[in-house]
């Protein structure tokens, strides 16, 4: 469904590699289509107001303002907000049900530290995140100093790393491979270089990658 191959890139939200990013990308294309229609509509009406004003003046002020100003947006916005909220519900890291593997993330100026408490004997890693492909993980994120932003665009939305808080995001990488992440909240002089690598492994290879396997 990718109209523009130029949208591909290791950090592109339009080149999704997981269901969360995929559903947001779909939402984006739908909203883009809708917005384009609305933009053309308003421009057309503006043109009509100059060149075919009778098309507009035939409506009473009340019909015009209530219909276009209130009625039309209400319908569009209700549909949009409702579906966006329903969609958002599916992305939440719910505490009920089977809990995915947990990875602890600590951001600090200017690197990312990952710990894998659910894998016995796993070594922590810095600036490289190891994930199992095809299985969801819960990343529990905090910061040791200032606010940073944890963002793997091809897998899903971002969440902030805030000192004193632990924020959880649930992500899934469809396939094994190498992905990239960025720090998405301005955090000082090293903000520009605070990216990280994401390695998704076939589940059986994960423990070994973390130095805990046989």
């Amino acid at each position, binding site marked *: 469904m990718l109209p523009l191959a130029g949208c591909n890139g290791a*950090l592109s939200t339009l080149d999704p590699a997981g269901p969360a990013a995929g559903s*947001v990308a779909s939402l984006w294309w739908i*909203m883009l289509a809708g917005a384009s229609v609305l*933009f053309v509509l308003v421009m057309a009406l503006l043109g009509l107001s100059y060149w075919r004003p009778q098309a507009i003046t035939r409506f009473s002020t009340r019909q015009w303002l209530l219909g276009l100003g209130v009625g039309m947006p209400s319908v569009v916005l209700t549909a949009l907000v409702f579906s966006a909220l329903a969609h958002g519900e599916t992305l939440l890291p719910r505490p009920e049900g089977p809990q995915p593997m947990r990875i602890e993330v600590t951001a600090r100026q200017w690197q990312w530290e990952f710990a894998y408490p659910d894998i016995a004997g796993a070594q922590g890693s810095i600036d490289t995140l190891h994930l199992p492909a095809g299985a969801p993980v819960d990343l529990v994120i905090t910061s040791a100093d200032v606010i940073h932003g944890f963002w793997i665009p091809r897998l899903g939305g971002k969440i902030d790393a805030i000192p004193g808080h632990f924020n959880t995001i649930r992500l899934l990488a469809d396939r094994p491979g190498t992905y990239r992440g960025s720090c998405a909240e301005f955090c000082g002089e090293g903000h520009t270089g605070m990216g990280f690598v994401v390695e998704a492994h076939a589940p059986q290879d994960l423990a070994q990658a973390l130095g805990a396997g046989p």
Partner: protein
Amino acid sequence: MTQPRLTPIRLHKAMERIWGTGPGWQRLAAVNHNVLGKRFIVAAFVFFAIGGLLSMVIRAQLATPNSAFIGPEVYNQVFTMHGTVMMFLFAIPMFEGLAIYLLPKLLGARDLAFPRLTAYGFWCYIFGGTILVGALVFGVAPASGWFMYTPLSSQPYSPGINADVWLLGVTFVEISAMLAAVEIIVTVLKMRAPGMSLDKMPIFAWYMLVTAGMMLIGFPPLILGSILLEMERAFGLPFFDPTRGGDPLLWQHLFWLFGHPEVYIIFLPAAGALSTIIPVFARTPLVGYRAVIVAIVAMAFLSFGLWVHHMFTVGIPHLALAFFSAASALVAIPTAVQIFAWIATIAHGKPRFDIPMLYVAGFFVVFVIGGLTGVMLAMVPFNQQAHDSYFVVAHLHYVLVGGFVFPMLAAAYYWLPHFSGRMPVYRLAVPAFWLILVGFNLTFFLMHLTGLMGMPRRIATYPSAWGWDWLNLLSSVGGFVLTIGFALVLMDIIAQFSYGRRFGRDPFEAGTLEWAMPTPAPSYNFAAIPRITTRADQLEPRVLGPQLAGGHGYLGFVRDDRMETLGVNAMTGEPDQVIILPRQSYLPLFSGLATGLVVLAMLFKLYWLAGLGLVGVIGLFLLWTPGVGLKSDSGALDIGMGAAVPPDAEVDNNLAWWAMLTWLAGDATLYASLLFGALFLVVVAPAWPPQAVLESGWLWTILPGAGLVLAAGGRHLAERSPVGSALHYGALIGSGLSHGLAIAGLVLLMGALPDPRAHAYGAISFAILFYGLVHCAIGALLAFYTVWRVKAGYVSARRRLDLRLGRAWSDYTALAGLVGLAMVTVLPWLSGGAG
């Protein structure tokens, strides 16, 4: 005693002698809104150029990958200052200047409500702006982003004075904005031409009234946040430090509680300009005057329910996000009502082409795109991808440039003839417009894609690996095209002032009052004030102008060398008082300098000097008051047209009274933000409950509580007892002393608190009590000052302003103080229960 009617020329000279500003150094004493409005606008344009230069540095840096043009330390200052300058030193002062210049004219008044306050606000703006830009020159400009998130902007991570420059400089400038808000509200409600009831007000006045109301409620959270952060940085009070009971999110809530309304505060005056300009070129009245009023009120309220949409990724639960997402989508509706009202106006009229309409068309294209991407960003899942990426940079520039800059350029071309007295030259205007439109879209349209391709905000450079190279290069090229366009506009403006053809009145056949005077405008606007019988955008300035210049109207004369204009009933527009305005004065300048001294002293941590400066500021403000008011009752004054009304000093609901009430609303908002901040920390912040709390708090509250109640009681008694009697003086002095008692009690209570630097509990309790203390100090000052005013003869049974102002202040102080005492008593119990 009115003179016989003078000829227009004689009348003009007599008025100008009183209302005009003197030459040479006396220009520093100007309080006239014509002068000050123009100064605000020119200064705003200068800051726009500075902000624009900074943006060129940004685009030069980002044009190519792995750029070594400037390093991150400088880059961080550059983008922080670009945002800070554009938002605080350009956008707000620009429309403030336009409102200052235009509102009295549109309303049929001779000046704003408090001319010296306007001047003081101007100096605060200039001095604050100089501090901010000066810091850039010296390499110590703020570097934590224009919204200064903590802990990055806290002391450990921003150790220099850079962040203090922002906090103190911006607060200095925002004093100016708060005063402007109070003044605009009072002016729009009370200073109109007779007969201009609310339904006959020009729509721009409604927009400014709503905007000023938003400023009044929207700026205090920022001012509070800045004060708290500065207290954290300078004195170690840990409001935002999560290791000591604070929370970085408190800053974000306070900032965005201001920050979101701020962008609507910027948009609404521009929309007001559009609502004024479009009917003129469509040659028909605005369609949906009433609907637009409801829409802007809705927009004003809704805009205060959107702020968390800047925080969708901080980990707030989905239900809370949903409220803000729904409200953010909803705000598109009142916006759409205005857009379609404008389109309908064009359709109902006989539109003609002129340069302002070119920029109106540009507004439609750019702003609608911005609004549509805004609705996209209101959707939480999408926002969580696009937040903090270049998609947001694209969106914000589309709405700000589309929603503010384009309308302001339309307004510039429309009203520039009024400022200059000349018509535009038009050679450069059309190519300039196209360069701006094309350049803007080239720069920013691609950024939507750049952001979706993963480019985060505020990075100093990027590698070639992500596919952003060509996007950034084209954006930078676009930036240069845009700059050339603005440069042409500047040249066009200069050309108009230099070579433009002089014209008579009303070149655009508009229906509003500002065209019913010679241009450039005389200092006093109207030689006589008209009676309004139709909506004040359907008048005939060409007929009205000469009539008024001939003195046919209200107050068409000079009396006792005073600057007089009319005050009216807020609803009906019937005259109810003669407003006597102060003449030019150097005091606003000196007060501004003294305030600047306090700011600089705090910046360089010379607190003893700041204290002295504060004493100086208070002393100077007290010097403003001798001469305000009358020393004897005078009864109704003749205002012409067979009518007579009392002077403002003898009327209870006069300008100063309305200003006090308005000011207290803003003050209460700041206080409410503080109290909510305390509750926020208790519920949300980590590291609660604190180790040590206040013991037996209620005992400590007896003394200050009693002082507060007695002080208020004293002012009530003073208002009711015979002026000048022993009881009267006793009540006033008693009130002052009771405030002193309250202060003593508050200090003792502060001493009983655990160390405010150890935990945010102590810090916030201290802050609540300190708020009360400041208000008691002002209350005491007012009480003793009123004693002097009574002795000097300014107060009588009919001239009761001093008594009422002080009573309102002490009532508010008592209420706020008692609430604060209750809060401090209850906080230890609350913090044991939650968190």
